[in-house]
């Protein structure tokens, strides 16, 4: 029996791994029924795979049988691969046994669409209900919303799941139509909007009635595949920004396309996944969410693509030298946040520390500022007097000469001598 479970687990974990979301944060569930499990506010990554991605949840498909034929998806109908399906009991028992050994924070359950949307959603719902009601499991559950499932069913799922997500797949409607003619962004927007409205409605009710049940307490997220279709970074991030705004998403994930098909609409098998680009998009995402940047400051018609050799914050600073140097002993917090080489933690420490006297270079270094990068953009108590201003190209070359990109090291092949 365990041999068959192992086979299924291998197939259905392998098929689920292209969904990059693994966050277990934002949950508020407590273990107050003396059952098992609770949410950890910031989430816990229990291990990391050899590709450096975190493993927090048991991420599996209920089945990889699917009626759709989306060109970018490994489980597409026309793909000749081994198919499998878990029973409800199997998923529950794997989750419970992994959780009890502290392997995972919870379950990420997705599925191929078999028969139809409601039939699939109903199965997913049975798994989460069994976990919550019979096993008294209070760990984290991330559940996929199946596009086209009835609102009743989505509503019920939201009462048991901590996070729900539904993937945009391609950053633009035209890209999606090219690779998955049966799908549209509208199929995603409708359920995202429905869940969002229910979250708001129940939050409002909670102000009046205390006993309102939890509903998707960790919010919603989505994912876009990057590099399968020819979108610009500007298009990708504008889509992301509008989804953050319209649906109060907790996260947008960017997944560099890994070639899995000989389809001539897609990059060839063996093409390197666009890892640097993916990294730059995440940096941009962070700048939008935590550093007060508007998407148009970072990406616009004059700059539709992010620089590959430098990060987007440095890139913005070099294009806007008129704002620098910033005097860190007087500048506002939001301006300090914009200095390359200073992160949120250092910026906060600077604001507190400068109340006690003007800060010097050695103090900034100790606080954690990347001084070799920041020095071109700041003034502090003992900044040496400088006769001429540098051009942005000069600053860029100084910084590049001084830093070693993690990507360059990965790219250079070791010379084999013998």
């Amino acid at each position, binding site marked *: 029996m*365990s041999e068959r479970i*192992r086979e299924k*687990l*291998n*197939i259905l*974990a*392998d098929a*689920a*791994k*292209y969904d990059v979301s693994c966050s277990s944060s934002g949950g508020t569930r*407590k*273990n107050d029924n*003396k*059952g*098992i*499990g*609770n949410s*950890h506010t910031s989430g*816990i*990554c*229990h*291990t*990391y*795979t*050899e*590709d*450096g*991605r*975190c*493993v927090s949840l*048991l*991420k599996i498909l209920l089945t990889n049988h699917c009626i759709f034929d989306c060109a970018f998806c490994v489980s597409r109908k026309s793909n000749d691969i081994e198919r499998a399906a878990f029973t409800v009991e199997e998923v529950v028992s*794997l989750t419970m*046994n*992994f959780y*009890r*050994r*502290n*392997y995972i924070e919870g379950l990420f359950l997705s599925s191929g669409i078999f028969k139809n949307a409601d039939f699939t959603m109903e199965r997913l719902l049975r798994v989460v209900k069994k976990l919550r009601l019979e096993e*008294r499991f209070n760990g984290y559950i991330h559940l996929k919303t199946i596009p086209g499932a009835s609102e009743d069913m989505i509503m019920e799922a939201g009462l048991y799941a901590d996070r729900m997500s539904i993937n945009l797949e391609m950053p633009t409607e035209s890209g999606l139509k090219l690779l998955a003619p049966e799908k549209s962004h509208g199929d995603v927007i409708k359920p995202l909007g429905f869940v969002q409205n229910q979250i708001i409605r129940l939050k409002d009710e909670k102000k009046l009635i205390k006993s309102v049940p939890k509903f998707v307490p960790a919010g919603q997220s989505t994912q876009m595949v990057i590099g399968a279709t020819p979108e610009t970074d500007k298009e990708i991030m504008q889509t992301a920004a509008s989804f953050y705004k319209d649906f109060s998403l907790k996260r947008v994930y960017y997944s560099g396309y*890994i*070639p899995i098909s000989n389809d001539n609409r897609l990059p060839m098998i063996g093409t*390197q*996944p666009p*890892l640097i680009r993916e990294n730059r998009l995440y940096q941009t995402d962070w700048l939008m969410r935590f550093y007060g940047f508007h998407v148009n400051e970072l990406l616009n018609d004059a700059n539709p693509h992010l620089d590959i050799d430098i990060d987007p914050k440095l890139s913005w600073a070099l294009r806007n030298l008129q704002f620098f140097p910033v005097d860190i002993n007087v500048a506002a917090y939001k301006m300090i946040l914009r200095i390359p080489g200073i992160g949120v933690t250092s910026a906060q*420490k*600077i604001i*507190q*520390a*400068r*109340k*006690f*006297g003007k*800060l*010097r270079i050695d*103090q900034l270094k*100790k*606080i954690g500022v990347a001084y070799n990068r920041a020095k071109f953009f700041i003034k502090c108590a003992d900044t040496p007097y400088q006769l001429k201003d540098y051009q942005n190209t000069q600053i860029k070359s100084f910084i590049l000469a001084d830093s070693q990109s*993690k990507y360059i090291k*990965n790219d250079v092949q070791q010379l084999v001598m013998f």
Partner: protein
Amino acid sequence: MLLKLSKNFEPDAFEELLFVHNDPAKADRVWKGLQKKLDGKWMRMFYCTFLSEQPEAYVSLFEFTCYLFLNEKGAEQNYGNEHVLAIAQTARKVEREKHRMEAFIRFKHAADGMFYCGIDPDFNVIPLIMKHFKDRYADQKWLIYDLKRHYGIFYDLENVEEVYLTEEDQQRLNGLSKELVAEKEGMYADLWVNYFKSTNIVARKNMKLHTRHVPKRYWKYLTEKQGN
């Protein structure tokens, strides 16, 4: 001036020596004084720094305490002060180790129903992880044992208590031989190793990133890293 624990003490011909006696009443007075000056977040940072067991950290705590009592309320926000910064940074390291233990502990299911894990963390974090495991694993008995500091915590479905094992018991648990382990322990450990392999994307292999997140010294804890 240098503050040292007697176990770390080495005589120095040129220094004057003063032996400080442990006095719980005085310690309590200082602790209460600190509470008047510091909020909960800072009291925890103070405690974490203490748990780091680093000789330099004890000096920082002493200097920091003097600095606090000599200055107006709010002096702990002066990150330009080396002792303030040292405490903030040490506490952060300890919290990171605490978080790593919450992540990397792997329980083995023993035949008598108890879940067991032995650890040897860089810092003395057991007092910090106790609440997390008690809240989370409320319906199973478990034991977490610090093999380096020779004490552990045991949860009996009601309370958590400190336990001390004999050398013999420690070794028995650590090996957790076949007859002591629950029937399906091997199967689930094996399924987990399989899952760990299947969920990896070979085309994205990045061992540098992998070892940055899971430093090699923790691999011995991890079921999924055994047999590598």
